């Protein structure tokens, strides 16, 4: 299930600003409270794929350690794609929330 949402997770992690692969993984871990334990290496093919389709940009920089590293950032298209995915996710969450009878979901509100 997590794999199906990997693109959205990566885009969301980059919404706070450009970052290199390791920092993106740390950001995902921080924001999710370590809920997702996916092999770290799977992030890189996803980053490359998102770059190829124009949702991310990247450039080589030199880190504090003096090592060259690839820093990724959201492109305008990437930001739009994230907004779209966020809206889809919101609708999905509301629908499931309604189904499960959670308070605050759109469907639940309509039934009140």
């Amino acid at each position, binding site marked *: 299930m997590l*794999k199906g949402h990997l693109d959205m997770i990566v885009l969301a992690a980059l919404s706070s600003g450009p970052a*290199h*692969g*390791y920092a993106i993984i740390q950001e995902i871990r921080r924001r999710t409270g370590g809920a997702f334990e996916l*092999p*770290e*290496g*799977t992030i*890189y*093919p996803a980053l*490359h*794929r998102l770059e*190829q*389709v124009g949702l991310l940009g990247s450039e080589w920089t030199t*880190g504090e*350690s003096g*090592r*060259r*590293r*690839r820093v990724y950032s959201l492109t305008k298209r990437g930001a739009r794609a994230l907004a779209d995915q966020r809206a889809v996710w919101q609708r999905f969450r509301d629908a499931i929330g309604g189904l499960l009878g959670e308070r605050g979901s759109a469907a639940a509100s309509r039934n009140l």
Partner: protein
Amino acid sequence: MQPPRAISDYLDRLTRELSFDAPLARRVRQEVEDHLLEAAAAEPEEEAGEAQLRAIRQFGDPHRIASEYAAQSLFRQTRRVGTVAVLVASGILVSMNVRGAWYGWLQWSISDELKAVRKVGLLIDLYAFIIALAIGILGWAYIGTRRMATSFDPPYRDQVKRCLLLCTVAAAPLIATVVTDTVLTALRLLEAGLRLAALVPVVTMAGEIAFAVALVVQIQKAMKRAALASSLFCS
């Protein structure tokens, strides 16, 4: 500075798994090296060797990671071949028309024997080009509607094969067109002898041959990459 042995060994394995795409392998190696060193350094209380091994374990199986890259690399490569095929077909068409217009403008006359050869040659040219164009459009539509897979599994391998097969089948009549054009132009120039007016046919023919070579090189490169990736991931 050389990375520690464990990390270096892991990077070597990953690079070997990515051997189907050398520029990609170099880029990934550099990124992963930075990642592993940073991940290992993030646990200062841990013994260095243990921290490196943990970072490697968390990074995952290089074979699986490389398989995801293979899907992307071949997707990019087949799209490139499709684009090159369209450009080459357009280039050849322009070249043929420029040469025809040049002959017409100069009212370049040829002998009756050459006229008979030219008639056959033009028929071959026409039909070969129409066949190439029809298959090319079909191939372009097929490649354009494919989606990038997340791993290089057998169905995706078959899809890549079909894309490359369509490109090869479209390239064959295109090459026949170029060969026919080369023969016709050579015969015409041999008959007319060396003169300044021959410059346009020579240049346009050189262009056509260069286009055909570029297409063959792209197809060959893609096939080699696909075969290498298949041997690595579909055994």
